[in-house]
């Protein structure tokens, strides 16, 4: 029984390691920023997941008591990984994409990243400063 448990844990660890490695390799290999975003958000998730499952199995078979922390790590990972991805994508859209290059969202509105509803006051203040400067010149 112990022997099979050890084999199961080893297989999970090796699988997790392979997926982590593939995720890192994707960072090097894929051609541009947006495609590179895909490799770590996916492959690394299962890489971490494999290690966590191995850890749970180890505590279940050899530890003093079952461990629940791995479930929490999974939950926190599921909640934070999409937010990191969204932030990176938005920063990249601001830096290197023009709104015209993206597909249109179907109505008169723009994508929220390029919209000015959130910080209209900031934008207005900057416009006024700009027009004043033009005036002086």
């Amino acid at each position, binding site marked *: 029984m112990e022997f099979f448990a050890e084999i199961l844990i080893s297989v999970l660890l090796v699988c997790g390691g392979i*997926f982590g490695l*593939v*995720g890192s*390799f*994707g960072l090097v*290999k*894929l*051609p*541009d920023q*947006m*495609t590179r*975003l*895909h*490799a770590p*958000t*996916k*492959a690394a*998730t*299962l890489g971490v*997941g494999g290690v966590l499952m191995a850890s749970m199995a180890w505590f279940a078979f050899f530890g003093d*008591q079952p*461990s*629940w*922390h791995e*479930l*929490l790590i999974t*939950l926190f990972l*599921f*909640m934070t*990984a*999409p937010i990191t*991805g*969204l932030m990176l*994508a*938005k920063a990249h*859209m601001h830096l290197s994409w023009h709104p015209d290059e*993206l*597909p*249109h*969202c*179907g*109505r008169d*509105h*723009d*994508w*929220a*990243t390029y*919209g000015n*509803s959130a910080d209209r006051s900031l934008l207005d203040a900057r416009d006024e400063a700009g027009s004043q400067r033009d005036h002086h010149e």
Partner: protein
Amino acid sequence: MIRRIFPHPYLSALLVLIWMLLVNRFAWGSLVFAVILSIAIPALTEPYWPDRARLRNPLKILTYFLLVIWDIVVANIQVALIVLFKPNRKLQPAWITVPLDLRSPEAITVLAGTITLTPGTVSSDLSQDGHALLVHCLHAPDPESIISDIKSRYEARLKEIFE
């Protein structure tokens, strides 16, 4: 009165559960502290989340969760194969627009998170009126099928859970 103490009952229940899992072994003292946290944290964060999330069908969350886990495993293998064996010049990355039928902000958040976690897609932005999601695909020879996949597989189920 009870609504004043628990503005977000599901959040409170989740906080108790998370605290008990963090402590990792049962003790009445930690349960009391978990209840204190489950009252304090929703009260402190209520100004940022004024609306109450409505769940029409909480039991379906479990099947949705299992479906997403399964899809994440499949997605990982697909993405790993693309990364390892597909040359960059054959890759067809694409932006797609997914029109949304969902209206509740919580449901749209869950949908966007699910899209980011599953097959070669990252949700990148929401339209200003909240009626469409901008999604980037790693390899999309047929964008229409990806849109209909997202709508039938995830959005329909979320609509049953939330609306």
